């Protein structure tokens, strides 16, 4: 839109309000939205529910290296516990609504 005045805003908002019912069912942005939700039955719980307090100690020993190793090569990535499959842009998370 090139210029804005109260009339064009009023028309645009009126348009938005009438769009809203339709949009609620099929959001224009859905393809551009990734979701991060709490678990549904049978799925894993969300990751950030895991940053929790505990009253227990650790029986594993922490990695003690102090230097950045770099993730330049596929081998280094594999050694570092990463994966080498091609990046697809969109992860397989479900889309919203």
């Amino acid at each position, binding site marked *: 839109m090139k210029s804005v005045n109260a009339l064009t805003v009023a028309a645009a908002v009126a348009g938005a309000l009438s769009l809203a019912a339709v949009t609620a069912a099929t959001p224009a942005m859905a393809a551009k939205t990734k979701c991060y*939700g*709490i*678990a*549904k*039955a*049978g799925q894993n*719980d*969300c990751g950030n*529910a*895991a940053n*929790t*307090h*505990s*009253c*227990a*100690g*650790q*029986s594993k020993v922490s990695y003690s290296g102090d230097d950045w190793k770099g993730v330049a090569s596929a081998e280094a990535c594999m050694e570092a516990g990463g994966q080498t499959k091609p990046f697809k842009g969109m992860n397989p998370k479900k889309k919203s609504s």
Partner: protein
Amino acid sequence: MAFDHGNGSSGAFTREPVPAAAGVGLRHTHYNEFLAGRPAVAWLEVHSENYLCPGGPRLATLEAIRQHYPLSCHGVGLSLGSAEGLDKDHLARLRALFDRFEPGLVSEHVSWSTTGGDYLNDLLPLPYTEEALDILVRNIGQAQDAFGRRILIENPSSYVTFAQSTIPEWEFCAEAARRSGCGLLLDVNNIHVSAHNHGYDALEFLNAIPGDPVGEIHIAGHADTEWDGRPVLIDDHGSTVKEAVWELLETALSRLGPKPVLMEWDLDLPPLEVLLGEAGRAQALLDRLAPQRRVLDDVA
């Protein structure tokens, strides 16, 4: 699950005593089972600090689950043994949590975590001295005043001790409770771990604990491992309860009478059935000992 947009206290819960029966620690990996059904367990315990967020699914989940179970709030971050005193903001947030969820029990540890304002996220050991006892008693008093409640304090597991200690751990805990008016949370796994690590007799600890102040007992698994090439028990809450700890629980319940018993598991959480199985074994022990206790009471 309907999502509640309510802020702060909903006034939905009334305080409900935690029964002298077996409960389990509620951890996020088991939220689904508790939301979908009503697993058979007498009560639940959460770590208070995991629910101090302003909002979101974690609080909504606890709100939904709390409808069906008595609750205990077990603190892990208050740092009752801090020489610099307690964090007043933290006390206020805990108070708000307790007012909202109305737990039947509120507990913390005989340990410290905060110094110079840094929170070290572990339950660190105290030297058992008159100085430390004075600090602990003062801090417990401040916490009980802030909460408007009596709390329980738990004997810790530890890996080092201090030559300057002048008071045995069991006397230190019991005396802190006597002076502050708080109760005791007896962790029999911690007694076993510390007794083994420091070479004292777990039964000497147990027999020195007065029965009346004990409001709860903890059981958990520990790791029998090595550190620096030497054997040590690490209190990792990552397995089923060891037989030696079951024996301590039986001794404790025989001596103290029925108490709420909590099965804790924090590392590598198993399917809920495994956790409930451990709670079931504790409940069977409670059931088996209770009639004997009544007979003794009748004779007395």
